[in-house]
């Protein structure tokens, strides 16, 4: 599903990623861990083409970093659900419209949008917050809105960047339960996290990133 083939990326003179080679299978849930600035976010960005590798090649399903252009990038991104570290919710739109955005960009009919948004919000236990605006929600609720937006379009892959960063352990456990449910439906997942509790006892692969390189691969 995802292949990094000797991928390097640098910003000015600093290497963000150095000769990364890894593969993820379809339906797999994998974790990226490592200290801040290790390159986890850059690695995720390379998957959804927010960054382009300086050398090497990234492939995601049928997309290849060497052959991406402004016409194909939106198509790739519609197949990837992203849970951003900084949420990226639109404060001037309510929960419903924030989630619906992921469907409207796919030109889905308004009737289907309504049905799918409400189903997704039910799944993340936010059906009662449909009309609320993001600033009025707690951190955990905002995180669940982001997850709902990421999965509403039924992507083949879900990327989550520090999804439990500012959440208490109970809320984090709730988020992890949702992720497992999503993964059980066959969605490939990559979760970048500092939180060991998230991957402990999962049996999933954990890629340890340090200074832009893979320092080791463990099992959670």
């Amino acid at each position: 599903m995802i292949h990094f083939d000797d991928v390097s990326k640098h910003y000015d003179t600093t290497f963000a990623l150095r000769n990364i080679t890894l593969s993820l299978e379809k339906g797999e849930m994998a974790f990226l861990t490592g200290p801040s600035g290790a390159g986890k976010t850059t690695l995720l960005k390379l998957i959804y083409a927010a960054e382009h590798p300086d050398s090497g090649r990234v492939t995601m399903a049928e997309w290849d970093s060497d052959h991406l252009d402004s016409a194909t990038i939106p198509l790739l991104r519609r197949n990837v659900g992203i849970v951003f570290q900084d949420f990226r919710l639109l404060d001037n739109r309510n929960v419903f419209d924030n989630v619906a955005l992921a469907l409207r960009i796919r030109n889905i009919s308004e009737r289907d949008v309504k049905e799918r948004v409400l189903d997704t919000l039910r799944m993340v236990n936010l059906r009662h917050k449909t009309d609320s605006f993001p600033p009025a929600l707690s951190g955990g609720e905002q995180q669940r809105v982001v997850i709902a937006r990421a999965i509403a379009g039924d992507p083949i892959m879900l990327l989550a960047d520090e999804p439990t960063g500012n959440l208490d352990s109970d809320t984090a456990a709730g988020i992890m339960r949702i992720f497992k449910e999503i993964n059980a439906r066959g969605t490939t997942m990559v979760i970048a996290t500092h939180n060991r509790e998230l991957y402990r006892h999962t049996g999933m692969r954990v890629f340890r990133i340090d200074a832009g390189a893979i320092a080791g691969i463990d099992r959670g």
Partner: protein
Amino acid sequence: MTYYLKATLQSLVREKWINLLSVLTIAMGLLIVSLVSVIVYNVDRATAKLPDTFSVTAYMKEDVSDAEAQQTVGVIRRNRNVENVRYISKAEALKELRKTLKDADYILEGLNEAPLPASLEIRLKRSSVQPESVKAFIADLRKMNGIEDIQYGEKLLSSIHSIRSGVRTAGIIFMVIMGAGITFICYSTVKILFYRRKEEIETLKLLGATRTFIRTPFVLEGSALGAAGGAAGLAVLFAFDVGLLRSLVSSVPLFGSVVFPTFLVPALPAAGLFLGFAGALIAIGRIRF
């Protein structure tokens, strides 16, 4: 489409003050453009009647017989610039003069012969009533035998044409400048809105939105601002027509033939819409992923 319309409407309401300011500025600009249009239209309309009244009078020499004069008429008729020619003999000229003098025709008593020379009244085709072609025609006419003198409103013709083309050119230049100004207003407004929503646009891009999806609400918003400006300008123009122009037309003789050009009714909002559309399109530019 529902999404685009909703997003446009939401933005128009959310940014109501900047949008209102833009609409008023566009309305002012288009109002000035339309006032210039009223002037250009009326000058054009007034001068367009000139070819219908324009004629050349060629006076024949004293010794030219009626037969020779008719021969000259035939030659002139064949000229491609000529619509028709009327020969006025000395006798006819005297008859017309008597008619003109009415009760004062005693002035003519005692004259042994007709005092006025025979003449030709030549009407040119509408397309030929241009200073250059009239000059060329007059030159040809002077070369003909039997023609003594030619009279036509040379100065009037060239000055009316100068006024007409001057007003037209100045009007077009002014409208182009104002059009560019209005486009710039729409450009600036959409650019500001675009920068204010930069983060939102970035999020849309990351979610997989296409360029069209991102651009469309901005283009619709720019077009709506332009059209609203045009409609507001039209409303003021109507007020000007009803409140001032109509009373001037009925009371001041100088304004007697001034008319309100009805083409401005659809043209003003349409021009606003087009300029707003163009301004928005330039403002958004190329979206990079």
